[in-house]
């Protein structure tokens, strides 16, 4: 589903210094597969996600999603791709304050549906994510875990084939974090979605089909307790 070929992104900072954020990275993820990616701060995780989402152009290499090279698309088509084929679960829970949970979850559906239709369409997904009793609550009335699930619902609302998750448990306590990881794994397999999970959370490995480590812009095999593993996983 997702194929990254020799992806390169270097940044020039200061006086001639070059930061190799992503340096010849290749990776493929099949449908229904959850890949967890560990890496310390500054390892290039965010740059990699931005390039897969079409928000940042690579210096070289290609990002193939469903057989199509995202880097070759126009800006408008890249936006369409993000909206309809990609689900992006972000660390920041930027729900629209004062607005109901179902409206927040259905935001992406508004591109093609009227509000009432979008609300109806999102209902089963909210139910699946355990938010069926909370759909009418406003954003600020939800717990952090519920807010994260609303963000997951938004990401999955357009039935994407690829989901990118950036530290989805970053704002949650241990129990809620486990719940979310479990949920993502279930959804990935149930919906046959290719999922790339970028995280620091040592428990994520347990839910992933494959685990990789990212350092200095390159991928390494993940070794639990090894040099590239997060401290908790050692």
């Amino acid at each position, binding site marked *: 589903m997702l194929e990254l070929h020799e992806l390169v992104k270097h940044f020039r900072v200061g006086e001639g210094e070059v930061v190799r954020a992503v340096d010849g990275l290749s990776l493929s993820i099949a449908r229904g597969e959850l890949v967890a990616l560990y890496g310390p701060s500054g390892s290039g995780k*965010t740059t990699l*996600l*931005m390039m897969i*989402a079409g*928000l940042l152009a690579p210096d070289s290499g290609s990002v193939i999603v469903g057989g199509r090279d995202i880097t070759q698309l126009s*800006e*408008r088509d890249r*936006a*369409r*791709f*993000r*909206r*309809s084929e*990609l689900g*992006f679960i*972000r*660390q*920041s829970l*930027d729900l*629209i*304050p*004062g*607005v*109901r949970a179902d*409206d927040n979850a259905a*935001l*992406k559906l*508004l*591109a*093609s549906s*009227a*509000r*009432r239709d*979008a609300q109806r369409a999102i209902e089963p997904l909210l139910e699946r994510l355990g938010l069926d009793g909370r759909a009418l609550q*406003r954003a*600020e*009335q939800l717990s952090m875990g519920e807010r994260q699930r609303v963000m997951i619902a*938004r990401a999955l609302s357009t039935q994407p084939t690829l989901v990118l998750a*950036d530290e989805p448990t970053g704002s949650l306590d241990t129990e809620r974090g486990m719940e979310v990881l479990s949920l993502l794994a279930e959804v990935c397999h149930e919906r046959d979605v290719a999922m790339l999970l970028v995280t620091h959370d040592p428990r994520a490995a347990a839910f992933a089909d494959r685990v990789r480590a990212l350092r200095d812009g390159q991928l390494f095999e993940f070794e639990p307790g090894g040099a590239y593993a997060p401290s908790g996983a050692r």
Partner: protein
Amino acid sequence: MRLGTILYLYRVRLRARLVQELLAVAGIGVGVALLFASQVANTSLTGSVVRLTNDLVGNATVQIVARDPHGFDEAMLARVQALAGVRLAVPVLERQVRILGARGGQDVDLIGVNTTLLALHSPLLAHISPEQMNEQKGLAVPASVAGRIGARPLTPVTLQIGARDVQTTIALPLQESDVGSAADSPIAIARLGEAQQLTGMADRIDRVLVEPQRGRDALVTGELHRLAGPGLSVRPADFDATVFQQAEGPAVESTELFSAISALVGFLFAFNAMLITVPQRRNLIADLRLDGYASHEIAQVMLFDVLALGAVGSLVGLALGDALSHSLLQAQPGYLSLAFPVGSVRVVSVASILIAAAGGLLAAVLGVVFPLRREIFTGSASELSTSAPRASAGRRAPGALLGGVLCIGLSTTLLLGEIENVSAATFAFFSLTLALLLTLPMAFTAVIGLIDRMQRPVLGVSSRIAMIELLSRTTRSRSLAIAATGAIAVYGSVAVEGAHQDLRDGLERAAAAVSLGTDLWVTPTGSATTLATTPFENRYAAAIRSRPAVLGVADYRGGFLDVGDRRVLVLGPPRSNPRLVSADQVIRGDPGLASFHLREGGWLTVSRELATELGLRVGTPWRLPSPAPRTFRVAAITTNFGWSPGAIVMSSESFARAWGDRDVSAYQVLLRHGQSLSGGLSQVRSALGSSALVVQTASRHQSNEIAGQRQGLARLTAIAALVLLAAALAMAAAIGAMLWQRRGRLAGMKVDGFDEKELWGALLWESLMLLAIGCSIGALFGLYGQVLLDHALVSVAGFPVAFSAALWLAVATAGIVTAIALLVVAVPGYLAVRVSPALQD
């Protein structure tokens, strides 16, 4: 809490919210500026007349004054001086004349006085010695007047007095050091003898200013009343100022009404800006509570915020208002200058400054304290940490709606019961304003809900995202504050401008009623042409009649008459005029019968406010206090023909009897059938020879009258435009700030696949709906406000008003404000959506 700590906290926080604080300062500044500028415009108009009056009368407290434009015999002076208790009696001859120089002409108040005026310690001549005055030849005019007409010292000028042209010279231009504030007044000072000679009124004066001996005012006033007889009146020395204040009343009240609306718009502007900083202040209060500070200490911190904001905002506003009063809102006397010596002096009273500054401080107090009152005075730290909207807001909505409905009911009751005085009119208008503010939240929610239900026809992702944002409860207060700003500004503008238009249309009808019904008018030149109130010798009729184009010439008489504290306009159309009193000016009585009675003689019509004041009804007799007092019967109650102190209509012949004088103030000329107006004009002009009379067509005469009346009302239009512009900018600034703060969320939405065009469209849709809803609700209330003000103008002041619903004005006003604000918002909106997509806050 120590002042040093408060200052430190303020300084630290100011760095973080400088833009928002500047917006709040601008909001308060705009409100203060509009309030201050309109106050100065009002005080300047009154002040110019009051100052000139006081500068002339000096220590005099009472005067004996002629009712007759021909004045009275100068011998009366000796009789006044001989009265018991009189310390000093000073003769004055005063005439409205036109002075022509090399560069043009100007209407001035010619004041003829002698050296005895110096003994009154009159500030007007405080710096002129008796010798200088005795040696003066010609006219002393302020340098401003000399400059305007292009006259230099000792150069010849022409005086046009009634139908006569007289040559004289300019003695010396008077500087401010010579005549003080009168340096900006339209006056010309001459020795009494010379003034009498120039005006053709040898040995005649028209008033004697009297300074009684200490403590003998009552005695002197009684003696003067005994001496006066029927042709003279005894008045306070500053009577002109009193009469002018009465005449200027409606213009002042309408300007003050707009000042209040301006202040409200300014306050809402500030309130909008303050709402942006509320979360920061709320966090500060929470931190202070956690650190153990008590409510009164937190109140001190907030009080410092109020004082800093209010003081800076007020200072900015006073400076801006000063500039406005110099340029856009200069005192415009309009038609009032026909009866009063209105100058261009700018009077800034301490009261104007204090009122405006107090308004600024009040806006700051409400803007800071109102949204945070719970947190400051009763809140606990735990309550403060939640950002959830309070449930009580929802419970308050039906109560507010009920209050709004009650306010509308109150205004309607006052309207149906005929608004009888200014207080009732003001109360009804502000009750309606309150109704608007109280019903706005429910109306806003209802409209948003309705649009949400009808969303299918509104295509596109942008409009749907906009709707989601508008449905947010968290931003509801801010949205309502923005909508209220537009609503109040549009409401005030539509109501006042609508009433203004109706009044203008009504005045045009009144002008038509006076001007039409003849082909040509022959009148003295200058502004005297407008109302035809300057008398001249009746010796031109035969020459005009002899011209082949002329079918007939009729005498028209008009003038001003002081009735109580009112300087009433008296119209005396000839009996032959088919429009003796126009049907659309009659409020009570039968127009046909009224015209019949006026033709008959011994009858007159009085305007409504005069009738109310004197207790007159149709058919009742009234002894007119004219130079030759006579008893008339009231044929009808009319409008005031646009002259705010009141108007009387009688036939020209009745006028001549009541004034005991055959002089006329205009001729109405009818041309033969088939004769062109231009041909007629030219023949009548040649018949007038070298006189100072001018001839104009009836439609031209009407246009001049309308122009004079419009000039007096122009201030309203200027303020209305400023209020709308301020509101548009206020809303744009508030929305712009709101959108700018949303950049983080916009960055996230870009990651979700929304492109810049869609997001910009969403922001514009949201702004458009917010603006359009607020302005439309304001326009709707504005139409009702217009009806209210129309009725107030008729009921209270007796103005001729052509009732209408200013639908186009309402639509255009709401549309223009929305469009301006939207155009301004488009820029920060565009910059906000250019934010880079972000995965984290």
